[in-house]
């Protein structure tokens, strides 16, 4: 399977359903480490960035692996 075909088959609508979860998980996780809202939002932004970056890296790895399947 071509990598781009794999990405297309993921379906962008499914990715859209992940975004609210990324936001909520980041906010709640950050809120368990800080007490003040500005610090919570700063930590949540960093956390969300990490989650999205991890999802992109895993997606790319799976796309590359799928090229050999």
């Amino acid at each position: 399977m071509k990598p781009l075909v794999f990405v297309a088959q993921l379906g962008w609508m499914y990715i859209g359903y992940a975004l609210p979860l990324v936001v909520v998980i980041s906010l709640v996780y950050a809120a368990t480490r800080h007490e003040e809202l500005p610090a919570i939002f700063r930590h949540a932004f960093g956390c969300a960035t990490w989650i999205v970056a991890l999802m992109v890296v895993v997606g790319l790895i799976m796309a590359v692996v799928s090229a050999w399947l």
Partner: protein
Amino acid sequence: MSGQTEGNAPETIPLKDPGLAALLGWLVPGLGHLYQGRTAKGTLFLVCILGTFVYGVYLGGDREVGWGRVVYMSFHPEDQRLHFLCQAGVGLPTLPAVIQAFRVRGGREPWWGSFMAPPRLPSDRSSNRPTLDELHKRLHHYFELGTLYTMIAGLLNILAIYDAWAGPVRDESADHPKPQSPSASAFDGPHQGSSIPGESDSSESTQQSKADQTPSA
């Protein structure tokens, strides 16, 4: 409670009755924090966790089969709904599922248009309610999405409950590398006041760790 105290002392968060706050936090997400007067975090938990749960309930149902079909309690050998163990972390919002499960188990029809009612077992011919297979066929991937959202909401509330019980987890990056008390442990359990390192980046290097503080309980 807010802001930075003078000198190197970390701010102290008064944790009013941690046990009761944790119980309230389980019953309604964020309620424990609101009880403790931590309004901002309580509201944040309430909106984020309850919003995720409600959205999952919305995704996992429709007008025909009933809403909230992804949240149901069933431990029958034909349908072990272990997902409910995670969903129950949200607390009272899952109470209808418990009520519906007992009604169905007693051979009665569920209330509220099958809201959070367990699906009919394949071996049960006494009702025309949809089976789990029929729910999947009807709701497609929304059944899985709704299940995922509601499970994550329940699991996130466990973090919120812990926060109501013991205060914020200390930020390792803001700790001193050398603790002042060699006998201090990283976790000092629930207490009436939780101290955390300062929130401002400029003063992080001068903060004492939470482990250095003596519990005031």
